[in-house]
């Protein structure tokens, strides 16, 4: 099948490949409750923060995915999908569409298939994935470094310079941490890792950053072994 426009992008990518990816989005069990047609009213665009600063439109996502235009879908999947703010302001849609939800599904497919555009979008983000997957908290005080947040002003330098003492000068006992946002017990961190493992998330990480996957697996599975977890036995419960 030919692309819609004569000068459409990604003409070198076979239609079958684009369709395969589109079908993966459609196969997600959440897909059926994301789109219900479109009035073309543009309310979602008016509410969308990304639409103000990027060449981005939640309405285009709703329409392209609804009409199954796989060529434009593929273009959005590579060129626009990572611009979404995931604020879900677009759920103000009078047709009850959820363009932000469709975008979440598209991003999952992009990651699952290791698309180059997804790898590029997440290149600087890998350290955060390591943080959440190994500690159970998304951000931590030790990330407040001037080289990571140079635009946040001199306060970051202050925090960074006094980090250990300032963290201990916080009353709740669970927050005297530097590498974690709060003190997550090791047992709980391992349970979280097992969830990632049993739901196929580690394969997603491998698709997007093989090096990160190898470090994560080595560190966490050593811990599991130390704590006497039998992975084969656990996996047999799920199968």
């Amino acid at each position, binding site marked *: 099948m030919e692309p819609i426009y*004569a000068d459409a992008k990604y003409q070198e990518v076979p239609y079958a490949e684009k369709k395969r990816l589109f079908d993966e989005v459609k196969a997600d069990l959440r897909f059926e409750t994301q789109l219900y047609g479109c009035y073309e009213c543009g309310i979602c665009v008016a509410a969308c923060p990304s639409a*103000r600063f990027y060449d981005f439109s939640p309405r285009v996502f709703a329409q392209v995915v609804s009409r199954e235009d796989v060529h434009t879908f593929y273009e959005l999947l590579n060129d626009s999908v990572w611009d979404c703010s*995931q604020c879900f302001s677009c759920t103000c849609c009078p047709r009850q569409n959820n363009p932000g939800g469709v975008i979440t599904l598209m991003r999952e497919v992009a990651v699952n298939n290791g698309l180059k555009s997804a790898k590029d979008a997440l290149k600087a*983000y890998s350290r955060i994935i390591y943080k959440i997957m190994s500690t159970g908290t998304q951000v931590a005080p030790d990330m*407040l470094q001037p080289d990571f947040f140079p635009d946040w002003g001199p306060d970051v330098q202050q925090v960074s310079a006094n980090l250990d003492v300032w963290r*201990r000068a916080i*009353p709740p006992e*669970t927050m005297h941490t530097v590498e974690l946002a709060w003190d997550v017990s090791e047992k709980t*961190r391992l349970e979280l890792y097992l969830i990632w493992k049993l739901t196929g998330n580690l394969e997603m990480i491998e698709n997007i950053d093989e090096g990160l996957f190898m470090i994560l697996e080595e560190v966490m599975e050593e811990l599991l072994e130390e704590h006497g977890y039998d992975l084969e036995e656990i996996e047999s419960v*799920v199968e």
Partner: protein
Amino acid sequence: MSPLPIVHEPTKAKDRVFDRKPPLTDAEYKEKLFALEEQGELIVHRIGEAQKAVELETKTGHKKKVPLDNTWHHKSCGQCGHIPGYSTAIFWLIRQLGLTYHDPRDQTSCTAWNYYASATSNAAAQAAVAVRNFAQAYEDGYFPIVHCGTSFGHYKEVREELLHHPELRAQVRKIMDALGKPMVFPEEIVHYSEWVHAQRHAIAGRQVRDFSSITATVHPACHYHKLVVEDAVYDRELYDGQRTAIVSGLVKALGAKVADYSTWHDCCGFGFRHILVSRDFSRSFATIRKIERMKEEADPDVTLTHDTGCVTTLDKSQFAAKAHNRNVGIPVMSDAQFAALAMGAHPYKVCQLHWHGVDMKPLLELMGIDHQAAWTEFEEQARRIEAGEIEYMTWEDC
């Protein structure tokens, strides 16, 4: 410019039926949960007498039970990690009101920040993370209260997905079996700001600082009132029930002025991925669409919000904008920190305002706080820790 030539018709979604159903109301969510419990599929964690719950009205006019006591605190990554006075203020308020809470170590992030930023997860993992945390709260015997707006919104998404899809429930149940945990979901998903809203008159009753000269703007968190909207709290006395009452209700109860501005409904610009690795967008949106509009239209002394990312984005984005001579310079904090300050909390030991970016001193002066003396007191605590005289600052030191 002439239109691009159409070389063939787009494919049609011939097979799809746009079967549009109204969203479930919050009461229907509960009915479905209880029905699943009857069928033996899960345990519903109920709000009991120990929680001394009150009822608040939701967007759809239903009553939502908000537990006041014996609560299990589902903490927030960004609050605990980068703005620790946020979580501390919540705990301080509970302690001041003589109530009991549990601050668990057996709690993980909801992982939704990562999911919305990178999509390196899926429906089963996200639901399993939610259910594992809820099972822990159930086993600990306290009712969960969620600190983060994104966790709150995402857990409601998870609830909807679990109720809709038996195959997802089956998958999550197997994972819980493997972890040795029960399959539990709470009767209500409650955000801490709903607790603050429910307690606003009790907080005002213990107010020791005069806030009548303070003007505040409110930024409502998108994931509180836009993501599965049904059980967000509304009040006919506030904005005629057309906007969520959360935060604004507290400001009014404390005698400060709530100032309106034209981009009230806009997002803060957090963006999940953007705030960490693509901040030019977050900075631009936060300052141009939110802070500058507030400045021009309301010139507030402070802007208050009730979510992790919103405090961070609105606060931290202002430094770079100031370097470009933009009209910025509004202190940003959470409703909990504002409430704690009204009740006499220490600005640095409890509210930890030194972790925020924008200069708070003019605001503290308006509140009648001697910030220089307060900072000296904090520094003395820090000195004692550094000198090894004490290991940590405790609640008693506050």
